[in-house]
Each structure stands twice: as structure tokens, then as C-alpha cells.
């Protein structure tokens, strides 16, 4: 980071290579839209470049800081989008996989789960995103979201409860052919 701040393009390239996938993933899972996630990821790195020269290794962990920037951008975008267009939009599917048999079932299941995630309040979804998908510790996730660990746990509990209330009633339909790793299987 310090080298990128001094104008070292190679160092900047390493940062991009190392962190883009994670930042894009967190943006996509928070925003549920590919173009919006791309914009948010790019904006995150623009802010990184802007602040690179001021970076000091002490203090916040770099990755935590980067996640916090990304999360703030995403939540700002969501707030702005809600102000401008309050009507709901369907969640976007990331992959256009061939729709054949099991893949069709898997796609339908994924859609139901995506819709359940989409229906969660933004901050609950963000908490699940950071802890479950990004596998950050509760302390890191709380730090990124600017809340206490207790508040984070409350967000996680409410988020998971919301998902459970929506998904558990249709568990039979969703898990009929699902393996442990979430891939479709024949009975």
C-alpha cells in the first residue's frame, strides 16, 4: 500500500489482483446487481488510490479498511437508490448457466434464496455478507460496519431469522435434491 502510494504501479497491480475478487463479491452480495457492484468496486479502489499516499501501516488493518470503504459505498448507493426509486426490482442473476434439468432446479433454488437475501434489510444482509461469505470475524465485521459486536450479533440473528422464516417453510422443495455443498443432486 505504501509503495502504491509512492507511485509504484506494480504494487498497485498487486493490490488489485489480491483484493478485487473479495471487494467485488462483497459489493455484489450487498447490492445484488452486477453493474452496481462493478461501479462500487471501482469507486472503492479510486478512494484507495486517493488515500494511498497517506496510508500508515499502524492502526486499522488494510483489508478491514478497504471493506469498510466498500461497504459504505454500497450502503450509500442503496440509500440513494431507495430515495430515487422506491419500487422493488428483481435480483439479478450473476450467471447465465445453461438451463438443463438439475441446472434448472439449481437456478430456481438459487433464485429463491437470492430473493430471500434481497428481502432482508440492507444492514442485516451486510452483516451476513461479511461474516458468512467473507468469513470475517465478528470483531472485524463489527468494525467495518461501525457497530459494536453486540449490535452485529443482533443484525446477524435477525437476518438469519428472516431468512429462516422465509426459507424453512419451503425447505422440502428447496432441498429435495441439494447436497451439502449446495449443488443439485438426483434422488
Amino acid at each position: 500500500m505504501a509503495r502504491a502510494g509512492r507511485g509504484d504501479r506494480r504494487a498497485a497491480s498487486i493490490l488489485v489482483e489480491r483484493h478485487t475478487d473479495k471487494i467485488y463479491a462483497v459489493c455484489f452480495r450487498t447490492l445484488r446487481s452486477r453493474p452496481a457492484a462493478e461501479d462500487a468496486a471501482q469507486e472503492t479502489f479510486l478512494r484507495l488510490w486517493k488515500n494511498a499516499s497517506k496510508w500508515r501501516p499502524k492502526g486499522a488493518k488494510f483489508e478491514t479498511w478497504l471493506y469498510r470503504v466498500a461497504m459504505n459505498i454500497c450502503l450509500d448507493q442503496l440509500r440513494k437508490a431507495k430515495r430515487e426509486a422506491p419500487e422493488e426490482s428483481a435480483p439479478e442473476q450473476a450467471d447465465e448457466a445453461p438451463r438443463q434439468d438439475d441446472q434448472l432446479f439449481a437456478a430456481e433454488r438459487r433464485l429463491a434464496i437470492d430473493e430471500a437475501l434481497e428481502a432482508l434489510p440492507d444492514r442485516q444482509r451486510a452483516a451476513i455478507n461479511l461474516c458468512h461469505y467473507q468469513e470475517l470475524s465478528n470483531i472485524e465485521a463489527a468494525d467495518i460496519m461501525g457497530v459494536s459486536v453486540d449490535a452485529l450479533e443482533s443484525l446477524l440473528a435477525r437476518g438469519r431469522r428472516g431468512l429462516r422464516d422465509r426459507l424453512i417453510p419451503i425447505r422440502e422443495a428447496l432441498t429435495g435434491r441439494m447436497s451439502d455443498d449446495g449443488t443439485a443432486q438426483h434422488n
Partner: protein
Amino acid sequence: MTGPHSTTDDIAEAKRLLEIYGSDLNRWPADARARWGDIAMSAALEKDRADADALDGFLRAATAPKTPHDLKNRIEAGYRPPAEKAGGASRGLAGLSALSSWIRPLPAGAFASMAALGFAAAAVVDATGDLPPEYEAYAYMENSGLAAFDEDTGATWDAE
């Protein structure tokens, strides 16, 4: 396993942790795992564990984002080394730039006068040992090899 030391409070706490972090104990905070992990895996919380496990399965099955293939290139293209974006050097040399901008249109004859003025200035400098600030900054950067200086942060960067 719930044992003689498992209190109602312990079971309630293990249940709460299952709701928050799910059924995979590796996702639990280490201290919580050490204290309530066994209780969470006990028969007393079998149904809660099954529900948490099902929910974890759903989360795993959600759409996995794939980074668009050109996103990294676009992000890298947005990188501007500080020297490129810093106005410090150009601000520091503003005096020289202004000087050259009005020198250019002058007719050739005027350069003779300028040269004469230059000799005069050199003589003054030689006599006093001082340079105007813009010239000092320029001379320092020339001598030290520095290409840029950010006046806001005081940072300097090497030329690429």
C-alpha cells in the same frame, strides 16, 4: 454434550449462538466455541442445529458472484501515481512556467536582452548567494532527483 454442568443459561446461550453464527462451529468466535460448542452439538439442541444447518446450506447455495473478467483492468487503469495527479510540482514550478509562457512569443532580438538580464541576475546571485524561491525549489529538485512534491502532505515521490 449437555452434562451436569450445563445450566439452562448455557443451553440458551448455545441456542443463541447457533442462531447467530450457524451450525459450523468453525464460524463461531473461539471463546464461544470453547465454552458452548459442546452444548450446541448436544441432543438438547438437535432441532436448532438442524435448522441452523439448513440455513447454512441455503446460504451456500446462493448465487456466487463472479468477478467480471475486465474489472481488474478497469480498476488498474484508474490508478494514478501521485506524481501524475499531484499539483505540487507544477505549483512549485509555476513561476518558471509563467516565465517560459511569456518568453516564447518574444522575437529573437529580445533574447539578447534577456541574456543580458540573466548575466545581471547571476551577478547579483553570486554577490548575495540567494536565489528567488522558485529557482531554489527547482534547483533542489534538479539536484536531488525528486520529481514531485505534494505541498498538502509534504510527501515526495520518486520519478517513475
